């Protein structure tokens, strides 16, 4: 599969959707009665969290594919998905802290179960790269990373359930579901923001896949052109290697 094709069109679509999302969030969606302007961060924070979690799940599904087929390309897909979700995860935690400071007056509150669950999931996935890095054998690294991705992917819903149960009596849920209690205008802005964030994720994923494939091909061509000695061997790395033939 060529990851570089239609990247330009995808990037433009992402740009348009994200611009539309911000426009809708700022000028179309009504001001929140309680939280005022600060509530606008909702249109960044919640889609980002949902897309990041979706990326973790996608990484887990690709890991299942990798273990079933043994094809290293699935491992690369899983790696790139988890890697991008981790980056979005930092954004989720930062925007969540800002939102918490604005609406509750503290940078971190423990009685918001979704945010707490997200922190736990983030801490777990943060060990994905160190684990990969400390396994030298490439084939084993790919296999173990897939096992990790599947266990962590299955852990996500269980963890959300446990954290939610731990705080069930302290606080009622404000946004019980994506559309629960949201006015129609806010809902539209939210859905467009979600689409924009999802498109951004897909675009970045395709860019990184294209880049990884291109550099692997470049190495292979260099090797063919001027012999094995001309190409410096890949050092120890957390990133999966593609067969350079």
């Amino acid at each position, binding site marked *: 599969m060529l990851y570089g094709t239609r990247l330009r069109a995808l990037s433009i679509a992402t740009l348009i959707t994200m611009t539309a999302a911000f426009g809708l969030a700022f000028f179309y969606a009504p001001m929140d009665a309680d939280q005022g302007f600060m509530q606008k961060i909702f249109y960044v924070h919640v889609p980002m969290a949902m897309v990041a979690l979706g990326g973790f799940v996608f990484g887990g599904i690709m890991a299942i594919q990798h273990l079933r087929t043994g094809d290293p390309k699935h491992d690369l897909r899983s790696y790139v998905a988890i890697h991008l979700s981790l980056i979005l995860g930092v954004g989720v935690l930062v925007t969540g802290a800002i939102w918490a400071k604005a609406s509750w007056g503290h940078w971190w509150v423990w009685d918001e179960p979704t945010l707490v669950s997200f922190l*736990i999931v983030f*801490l777990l996935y943060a060990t994905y790269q*160190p684990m990969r890095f400390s396994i030298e054998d490439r084939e084993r690294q790919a296999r173990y990373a897939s096992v990790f991705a599947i266990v962590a992917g299955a852990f996500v819903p269980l963890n959300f359930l446990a954290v939610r149960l731990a705080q069930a009596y302290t606080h009622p849920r404000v946004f019980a579901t994506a559309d629960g209690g949201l006015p129609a205008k806010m809902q539209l802005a939210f859905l467009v923001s979600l689409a924009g964030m999802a498109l951004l994720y897909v675009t970045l994923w395709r860019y990184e896949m294209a880049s990884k494939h291109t550099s692997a091909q470049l190495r292979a061509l260099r090797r063919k052109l001027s012999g094995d000695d001309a190409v410096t061997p890949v050092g120890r790395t957390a990133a999966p290697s593609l067969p350079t033939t």
Partner: protein
Amino acid sequence: MSASAGERTAPAARPEPPAAEPRVVPLRTAVRALLRKELGLELRAPQAVPAMALFSVTTLVVFHFAIQRGQVGGDLAAGVLWVTLLFAAMLGISRLFVADHEEGGLDGFLLAPTDRTALLVAKAVSLFAFLAALEVIAVPAFALLLLGPSPGLGAYAQLAALLTLADAGIALVGTLVGAIAVQTRARDLLVPLIALPLLIPVVIAAAKGTTPLVLEAGARGVDVRWLLVLGLYDLMFGLLAYALFDYLIED
């Protein structure tokens, strides 16, 4: 062509098909042999359990000075107990596969004609046994050193139920994480980093469940909800470990 057709029509002509097939050791036999090895090793040269027990008692002393209390009760007591047990369990998890890895036990096991699930079952059961042995020392030490109210026998029975379910979860997760970590360079660093986030649901349910048992005002019954959460956790990680363990001990 004609010879193979003749063979197909007369299968009785081959007298030794069972001997030609590879002999597969049944799962139960393999698990029993592996368990005898694990427990025998620990009984002859005790390593994991004494270290875990000593660590847990030391941690209790550290807690006494760190929280500056002579006696604890309620949610604080539950927290102290579970942090102590969980951190002591990390020691057991990081040692779980080390001997097999260094002395070639894993290679020997891979040569044996048996299902790899046998190793998972044996390791999880022996880790469960180590944790139970740890708790036989750590829980009385906790009651003696730090616990303010002394709960009755009924509370201890309920605590035992919580401990059993939590230990099963720790044993399953620990076997998976231990098998991953033993093949890495940063073995002892990775075990707590991966295992602790995975075990947070266990901590939530176990600490919430333990709190009513150690209240200052006298023990109340454990909420069945937390036993169900622990049971669900055990079931899910049991299935995950069963499905994925084979991939961790190839080659």
